[in-house]
Each structure stands twice: as C-alpha cells, then as structure tokens.
C-alpha cells in the first residue's frame, strides 16, 4: 500500500476509534455517575417504573458482598418490600418509597482502597442514610468520609464500643448509629451477668470449686475490651461468691491469632487440660478458629465448661464441621435464633430461608431489616429526610419510646448506641445475646439465662453438663 494511503487510513481509523471510545466513556462512565438515572431499586413497589428521587427514602448498604453482604441485602430487600407494597412511608403528608442500593466494600479481607472507593461511589449516589459495615478496622476508615459528607451511617455489624461511646459522644462522628449487634461492653455485661447468675450457681451447686479459668480471645478492637472486662470481673467475683476462687493469679489469658492451625489448638487444649481449670471462656470471631476450638474441646474432653462467644457456633454447619461431642456442651452467645421473641421473628426466619434458598438469617440481615423499619418510622416522625430531621427522628427512640424490632425492643441511647437488656436498670428484652447449647438431637436450643431476659419472652430448654465430667 502506498504511504499516503496508509496515512489516510490511519487517520480515519484513529478518528473513528477515538470517537467510539469517547462516546463509550461518556455513556458508561459519566452518565451513571448521577446524571439523571435513578440507581436505587424499589422492591415491592407496585407502580410503573420507579418513583421519583424526591419521593424516595434513599438507603444504601456498604458491606462485603461475598461475606454476609448478600444475605444482609436480602434482609434489607424483605423489609423494603413490605413497606413499599403497603404503599410506602408517610413523610409530611406524601407517600415516600424506600429505595435501596448496595456497594461492595470487600472489607472482610481488609481491602481499604476498595472500601474507600465503594464508599465514595455510594456518596455519589447521594443517599439519605447508609447502613452496613462488618470489619471494624475498615469501617473506622470509611465512616469519617461519610461523616464529612453529611450522611448518617447505621452499622449492622460492628460491636466496637468506642464507635458510639467515644466517637459519637465527643462529636467526632455525629451521625453514627449502631443497630446491631450490642457493643462489646454490653456483650461483656451480658457475659458477666450470665456467669454470676447462672453458671457459677450451677457449677458450685454441683460441688465444683472454681479455682482456675482461661480466657481465649482474638486480638481485635472489640475483643480486647471484652477480655479486660471479664478479667477484672473474674477477679472481683472471687471475693463475693462462695466456691469461686478466681483471681488475676489463676485466670490465664490466651490470645490467639488467625495463623493458628488445628494442631496449635490441640496443643492449647492439651495445656488447658493439664492445668485443671474448670472454666474456658472463648471470645472468638473468626469461624475457622472457632471450628478448631470446638474440635479441640471434643478431643481433649477436659473437666471444664465452655461458655463464651464463638461465632462459628452460630453457623449452621458447626455440628458437622466439628465432631458432634464438642458442639453439644459448648455454650455460646448467639445474635439471633428462631424463637418467638418478637411478633414477627418466626415468620421472618422462615421467609428468609425461602428467599435465599435455605440460608438462615445472619445477625447483619436482621439488623438491616430492623434498620429499614426504624428509618421509615424516623422519617415519619421527623416529617422529612433531611439530615438533621432524620437524625432527630432516630434519636427520638429511647427507653420510653421504643419500637418492636425483630425479636427485641429497639431504641438508641444518648450516644446513638442500641440499648441493651440490663436487668439492673429494669430494662428487659431489649437487644440481648441469647445463650445457646446444642441438645442431644443436634438442635440448637436457647438455654436459661439466669434472669437476664424474661424467660417467658424467650422459651428455653435445659442446660446440659458434659457427660465425661464425673462430679463428686
């Protein structure tokens, strides 16, 4: 081909390709970034197409899709469906509809860059409020961006006490709320209440002298405070309760790291068995480590009761993953169970299983469901979706003016933290962990709490003693 022909051809091709790329870039990248198209979904909306953004309560979800995020979004969808199908929310006289959307933060893998990108993409969509969060360390990185943009954030998955009790209290994060789970301080209080009012009386009643305990915990933001509380509590009880002789000297602290393998746990349990402690208190959030923990308990069969937080215990296949013996006697806190602790709990549970093809709702999904409901109520009370009105509306839920969530009474304290059950303050059946143990048929049952929650409110089963521990 002649040189000049080549040249003309090249120029034409470049012009065509360049224009194509330009148009494509314009269409794909610029337009969806908020130029007219409505990125929200309206599940359950009965009308044509989508309602206008001005008549929408825009709620976003920031979570890790591949880990819990998908199920959380289902919880959100179910709640929004109910509200939209019933005609929306009454805000200042006009019906508003719930619009939901999600961005994947990939936070379970500590991916800060991606989490920030997702947060900024979410901010571009201009939501009224964002819910979600799972990994406290990553949440701590992206929430300041939301605060600086003036968007409230309601966490459905972070237990770090400091987020509300320090950051909200000192106004660093003025629009941060927590709806699930209880903060680790309340988890600790529940834990201590359980030990004091149920476990210690049961154990000393059988003639056991408690003179040694181990706290096994992961070193995360939210577990370290809990560990410290427990440690101090165990030291304090020994002065007061007969048969309990625990103190700083005979309570062992065992931190665990994600790099530990099954053999490491076997080694740990071996040392524990040799130490003669009667109590093992795990604070484990990593399900892998939790599985190894249960396996180890089964194989060593020490003369000890295990009671604590083991997230793996909450998962549906804990029984099949660890040899069954270990599961049956371990007592663990659970965020939610299929019990009629509220008017809609059982119906929701079953509907969730149908919607997801057989998965149990995780606590984040329950939190998301409750969040949509309370946001809808808050906007009705406040009469608008503007920032300060919405925040004021949410703040209006307190111990005297609470709302029924799924399985609990729902309200916030002065630091936007979800109010937890507190028998000492006369607050029953607010957010509380449920104490569970597997029974002989391999079904998880809620066991008595020693008065922490109203036993009429939550039906419970009997507590079982490990068969290998022959008592005097």
């Amino acid at each position, binding site marked *: 081909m002649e040189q000049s022909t080549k040249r003309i051809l090249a120029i034409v091709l470049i012009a065509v390709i360049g224009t194509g790329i330009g148009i494509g870039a314009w269409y794909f990248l610029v337009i969806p970034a908020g130029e007219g198209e409505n990125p929200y979904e309206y599940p359950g909306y009965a009308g044509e197409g989508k309602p206008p953004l001005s008549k929408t309560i825009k709620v976003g979800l920031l979570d890790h899709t591949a*880990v819990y995020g998908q199920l959380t979004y289902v919880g959100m969808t179910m709640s929004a469906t109910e509200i939209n199908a019933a005609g929306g929310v009454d805000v200042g006289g006009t019906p508003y509809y719930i619009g939901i959307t999600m961005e994947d933060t990939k936070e379970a893998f500590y991916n800060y860059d991606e989490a920030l990108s997702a947060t900024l993409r979410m901010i571009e969509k201009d939501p009224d409020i964002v819910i979600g969060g799972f990994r406290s360390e990553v949440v701590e990185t992206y929430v300041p961006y939301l605060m600086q943009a003036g968007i409230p954030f309601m966490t459905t998955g972070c237990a770090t006490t400091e987020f509300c009790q320090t950051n909200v209290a000192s106004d660093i994060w003025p629009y941060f709320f927590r709806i699930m789970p209880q903060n680790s301080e309340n988890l600790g209080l529940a834990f201590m209440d359980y030990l004091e009012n149920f476990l210690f009386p049961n154990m000393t009643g059988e003639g056991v002298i408690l003179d040694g305990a181990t706290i096994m915990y992961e070193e995360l933001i939210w577990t370290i405070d809990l560990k410290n509380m427990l440690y101090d509590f165990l030291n304090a009880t020994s002065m007061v309760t007969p048969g309990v002789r625990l103190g700083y000297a005979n309570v062992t602290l065992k931190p665990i*790291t994600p790099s530990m393998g*099954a053999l490491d746990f076997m*080694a740990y349990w*071996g040392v524990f068995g*040799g130490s003669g402690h009667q109590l093992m208190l795990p604070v484990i959030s990593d399900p*892998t480590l939790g*599985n*190894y923990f249960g396996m180890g308990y089964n194989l060593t069969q020490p003369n000890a009761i295990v009671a604590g937080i083991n997230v793996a215990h909450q998962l549906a296949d804990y029984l099949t993953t660890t040899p069954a013996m270990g599961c049956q006697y371990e007592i663990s806190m659970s965020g939610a169970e299929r019990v009629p602790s509220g008017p809609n709990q059982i119906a929701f549970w079953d509907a969730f299983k149908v919607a997801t093809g057989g998965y149990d709702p995780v606590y984040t999904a329950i939190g998301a469901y409750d969040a949509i409901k309370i946001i809808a109520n808050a906007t009705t009370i406040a009469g608008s979706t503007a920032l300060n009105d919405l925040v004021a509306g949410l703040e209006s839920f307190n111990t005297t003016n609470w709302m029924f969530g799924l399985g609990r009474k729902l309200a916030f304290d002065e630091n936007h933290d979800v109010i937890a059950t507190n028998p000492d303050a006369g607050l029953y059946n607010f957010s509380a962990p449920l104490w569970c143990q597997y029974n002989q048929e391999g079904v998880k049952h809620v066991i008595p709490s020693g008065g922490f929650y109203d036993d009429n409110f939550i039906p419970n089963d009997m507590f079982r003693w490990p068969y290998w521990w022959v008592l005097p």
Partner: protein
Amino acid sequence: MSIISILVYGAALGCVLAVLAVGFSLVYGVGGIINLSHGAYYILTAYIVFWFINANIVAYPIAIIIGLSLIALLGIVTYLALIKPIQHNEIGVMIVTFALAFLIEQAILVYEGSKPEEIKDISLIPFAKGQINIFGTQIDAQYIVIMIAAVIILSCLILFIKKSRIGKAIRAVSQDKDAAKLMGINVNLILMFVLTLSAVLAGFAAILYVSVSPIYPNYGWEYLLISMSVVLLGGLGSLPGSVIGAFIISFSRFICFYLVDIPYNVAYSGIIYLAVIIIMLIFRPCGILGKKERT
C-alpha cells in the same frame, strides 16, 4: 502428657512439611527454578477434591485421584507454557510463577465468593476416625495415618530417585545440565517431570493435612513461606536437608507452645519460622546441609 503430644503433633506436621518442602527443593536443586506457586498447588488440590466431594459426583478416592491428576496436569502446563520459554531469566521465572499463584488464588476466591454464604474455610474428610491411646494420651488416629502415609511417600520417592533410570537422569541433570544434555538426556523432559512430581507431592501433602487443618483461599502464601523456610534451613537443593529442616521447624513451633510459658507464646511461635529464615540468611545462607555457593 505434654511430651507425647509434642512428639506426635510435631512429627505429624514435620512429615507433612517434609513432603511439601521436598518438592520445592527438588525443583530448585534440579532446575534452578524457584516455584512460587508451590503453595498454590497445595491449596488448589485441596479445593478441587473438596468441590468434587461437595458436588457428590464421585466417591472420595476417585476425587483424590482426579485432584492429583489435575494438579499434575497443571504442573505440566506450567512448565511448558510458562517456565520453559523464559528459563534463562531466574527472576522472570519467579515472577511468572508468582503471577500463577496469584491467579489461582483469585480464581478460587471468585468461585467461593459466588455463593451467598460467607467464604468459609474448607477441610477434607479424614481417612481414620476416632482416637488411639498412646502412653496415656488421646491422639486423633488421623495423625498416625498422616505419618505413615508421608513416610511411605518419601521412601517411594527416595527409592525412585536412587534406583530408577529416570531418577538417575534427574540426578545427572541436577549435577550438570550441559553434561547431561551431552549424554543424551532430554533435559526439558526431566525438568517437566520434576515439576510435575513436585506438584503431585504438594497435592499429597494437602490431601493428608487439610483433613486436620482447614484452609482458606489465601493460605497459599503461608504454606509457600513455610516450605521455603524449611528448604532454606535444610539447604536449597538438598533433599535430606529439607526433611531435617521440616522436623526442626515443626518441633520448634510446638516446643514454643509448651515450654515457653509466657502469655504470648502463641504469637511468638507464629513468627518462629520467619526468625529462622532471617537468622539462616544472615549467618548461613546455604543451610545446614546445602552446598556452599560462592557469595
């Protein structure tokens, strides 16, 4: 009781690490190739067997055979497509095997993440259930099976390399590549064979050990580092050295648990193999039994 536990667990982990590290050492000793996808072979085999079992298509032994064959195939493909063309460039080989490991990890993550439930760790069914009583301690029978199987595999390997013709060819290539070529040995074929062998060894290690130690998709790097530290300790290119190094590292880890009685002994034991690597590199880079290279 503690001593028995240390012995058994340490021996079991040591056997598995030996099988894993011997493959890595073989590839380096014979071909001068640092195969950074060694850890990825380990987890990939485990995941393939797990997926086949979960899908309920085939029985467990068949799933194992399929897994091992697939990983052998991957080894062949790795050599032919990735390593052979850029063999002269040592750093390039490291980077390309690293890219392969990265690819494998991402592929597993994509598949595992596509299910609505959270990404969980996986474990395989142990061959032996129940426990055995050894001198008063209850030990899971699977650990004994692991040790026996690993010993069988290693002895077969040693016999193979010492006695068979291919083994002789392997030893020849490891001593002097060019001379072996002159003697008519197809060096490329031998290198490919060695790489495949190391992949299959990693696969064996996975099948044995993942039954007691579940894995996550990003554990590949951990196992790669452990096998590298074992090989460094024992000497790059020395097979007996790798076996010795494996036992040293695994026993030191458990001794750290039992004998170092401070509250944070777990965290310290987790960095033992890192400290070993650094100390060995500073003071004796050629390892305990390695050939001394000119520095």
